[in-house]
């Protein structure tokens, strides 16, 4: 009987427990003169039975499964003769791996190895027993849980409070998953970055103006040492993001204002979803649009007025990225502008202000925190965007603020550092973590600023 079957059985027990306990709560309620006489609605007694059936059984299964492998493995390895043990950890691990695979049926056993056969047999028997015991225990636990809940139904039993407490704990666990994941990622990036800074001094990374991360892959290879000055990357990121924001903020904001304040409902009903489609276009599509359409067009224009524009330019990438993030600005601004209460507009109009005075002096200030939030969200999208830049702005780490030249960004370099065959602990790969860390810090700072701005200008209406 595989584990999934016992899980199904436990689920069924929980369901049955739910129904019978709810039913019992009903009949007890009726005997006592109505549902209102119970502390909680019958439903809650049912939930409680379900919880008691599921939670302890699942916890048991989880814990058991976490520990069983270690025990089984050590028992199986106990069969190995001393001379084999003496060959060291690696050999044992290899053997164990083989045995595990054979036991699971994923590879063939070698027919003339008696030791292996014995180990496989022991492993299979232990695994079988373990599965049987843990299934039986879990099912018994589920039944006991249901019985317990069933027995404790009485008018004074505070089932609702118990259920709510459980729900709160469950939500807390979900929240901690998100937080712990973040913390985990941050720490792994941090540790790898520290390793990188062990190889390349932090001052060179932060202040160096030359980026060419080519290092020797093999010991015997002759290669330049590679230099890791990240300034050109930051400058490129900044340049492209700035261009994108210069495009997106005015257009997004204006269109949001038009949609909320001036457009007829029919126009709005059509235009808003249409704008949001922009956000659904894959960035690769934007990327080749930038590379194949915008960049050549820009070069053509540049030449016609006597400017030299390189075929991959920050301007092309920035413009297209700006179009891509318009929906972030417009959609969020639109929501916050809509949330400004009509009474506020009435107050201004009632004083004889024109529509545009009302919008400029009352509606936008009231919506400013939300608008700033939208812009910062768009900014972090722009900073994190990779595809468009790879395709339209190039890989050359030029130290320039001229939007007509090719530049590269932090994210693009991370991609190029980690693609292809790499030795994991070379300075080249570790540099990706350092760049990631910088990116993370930048977005964090951006968010903190956003929060600060929002709090400073926070305005409660009403």
């Amino acid at each position, binding site marked *: 009987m595989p584990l999934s079957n016992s899980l199904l059985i436990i689920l069924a027990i929980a369901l049955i427990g739910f129904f019978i306990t709810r039913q019992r709560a009903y009949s007890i309620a009726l005997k006592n003169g109505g549902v209102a006489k119970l502390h909680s609605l019958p439903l809650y007694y049912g939930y409680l039975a379900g919880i008691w059936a599921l939670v302890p059984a699942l916890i048991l299964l989880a814990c058991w499964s976490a520990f069983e492998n270690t025990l089984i493995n050590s028992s199986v390895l106990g069969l190995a003769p001393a001379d084999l043990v003496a060959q060291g950890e690696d050999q044992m691990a290899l053997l164990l791996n083989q045995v595990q695979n054979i036991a699971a049926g994923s590879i063939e056993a070698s027919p003339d190895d008696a030791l292996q056969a014995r180990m496989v047999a022991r492993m299979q028997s232990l695994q079988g027993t373990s599965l049987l015991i843990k299934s039986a225990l879990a099912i018994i636990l589920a039944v006991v849980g249901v019985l317990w809940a069933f027995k404790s139904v009485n008018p004074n039993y505070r089932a609702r409070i118990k259920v709510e407490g459980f729900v709160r704990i469950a939500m807390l666990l979900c929240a901690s998953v998100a937080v712990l994941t973040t913390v985990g990622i941050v720490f792994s990036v941090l540790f790898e970055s520290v390793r990188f800074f062990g190889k390349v001094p932090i001052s060179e990374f932060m202040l160096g103006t030359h980026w060419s991360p080519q290092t020797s892959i093999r010991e015997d290879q002759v290669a330049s040492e590679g230099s890791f000055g990240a300034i050109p990357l930051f400058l490129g990121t900044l340049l492209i993001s700035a261009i994108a924001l210069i495009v997106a903020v005015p257009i997004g904001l204006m269109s949001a204002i038009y949609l909320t304040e001036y457009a007829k409902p029919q126009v709005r009903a059509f235009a808003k979803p249409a704008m949001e489609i922009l956000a659904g276009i894959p960035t690769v599509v934007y990327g080749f649009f930038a590379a194949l359409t915008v960049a050549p067009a820009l070069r053509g224009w540049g030449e016609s007025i006597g400017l030299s524009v390189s075929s991959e330019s920050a301007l092309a990438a920035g413009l297209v990225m700006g179009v891509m993030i318009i929906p972030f600005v417009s959609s969020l601004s639109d929501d916050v502008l809509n949330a400004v209460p009509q009474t506020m507009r009435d107050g201004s109009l*009632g004083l*004889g202000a024109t529509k545009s005075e009302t919008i400029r002096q009352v509606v936008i200030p*009231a919506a400013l925190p939300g608008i700033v939030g939208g812009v910062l969200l768009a900014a972090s999208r722009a900073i994190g965007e990779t595809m468009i830049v790879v395709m339209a702005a190039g890989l050359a780490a030029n130290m320039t603020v001229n939007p007509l030249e090719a530049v590269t960004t932090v994210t693009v370099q991370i991609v190029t550092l980690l693609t292809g065959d790499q030795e994991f602990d070379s300075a080249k790969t570790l540099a990706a973590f350092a760049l990631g860390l910088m990116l993370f810090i930048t977005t964090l700072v951006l968010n903190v600023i956003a929060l600060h701005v929002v709090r400073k200008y926070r305005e409660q209406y009403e």
Partner: protein
Amino acid sequence: MTKTAETTSSDTQSRNSQLLAEFKETTGNVRVTEPKMRMDNVNVHYGDNQAIFDVNLDLGKNEVLAMIGPSGCGKSTFLRCMNRMNDTVDSCRVTGSLTLDGEDIYAPEQDVVLLRARVGMVFQKPNPFPKSIYDNVAYGPRIHGLASSKDELDQIVETSLKRASIWNEVKDRLDAPGTGLSGGQQQRLCIARTIAVSPEIILMDEPCSALDPIATASIEELIDELRQNYAIAIVTHSMQQAARVSQRTAYFHLGRLIELGETKKIFTNPSHELTENYITGRFG
């Protein structure tokens, strides 16, 4: 509820609907000799719903006109016609003639912005802007260019706040946000904001519903004082207040102007039975 009470209330209810069905035109004289504003045959629809039926009404110079009536009878709607605030409601349609000093305020060439500067409004719910107290009051004077210097603006702000009897409470924190005030303070701030523009007419929609008795008394004093220079239309649910501040009172019922007359007469000796039922609390 006792049996008798139930019977009386449902009796009044059917009597009221009967009276409403029989209603033809407003009891009492709706006209004054020197009207500031004159409304003729005003009908208001929200989509297919008619909210105001054929109302004729004059607002005299230097008078306070009280509008009373049960909730939902159209008092706010009518008030909002008088400075075209209903233009902001898409579904709202106003017909009839409304004139201010003889000019049609719904005429196509009429500039609503100028109209609203002349006919100011205090709303039912306080709606201060999310700006500082000072900027709230200075908002109107600034957009209309009423002050030529900072000193002059300071002066306007101070007098307006004083007249709305909130100066003492806010004079030390003019930079604090207006939205941080209590409900009653916000309402007085909105009144100050309105009078800072020096309109010719002030429309007040239940200006005191969020105020304590002391603030109410000072607002009533203000209304009395404003009457020297302005015409005021005030909607109120408090009959005592209507009796205290107004010269004439209009009684609205389900979108009709039932009766109009001297305030004293309306409250002591109403002519129409519907008015009487409302005044005496037998409204159903």
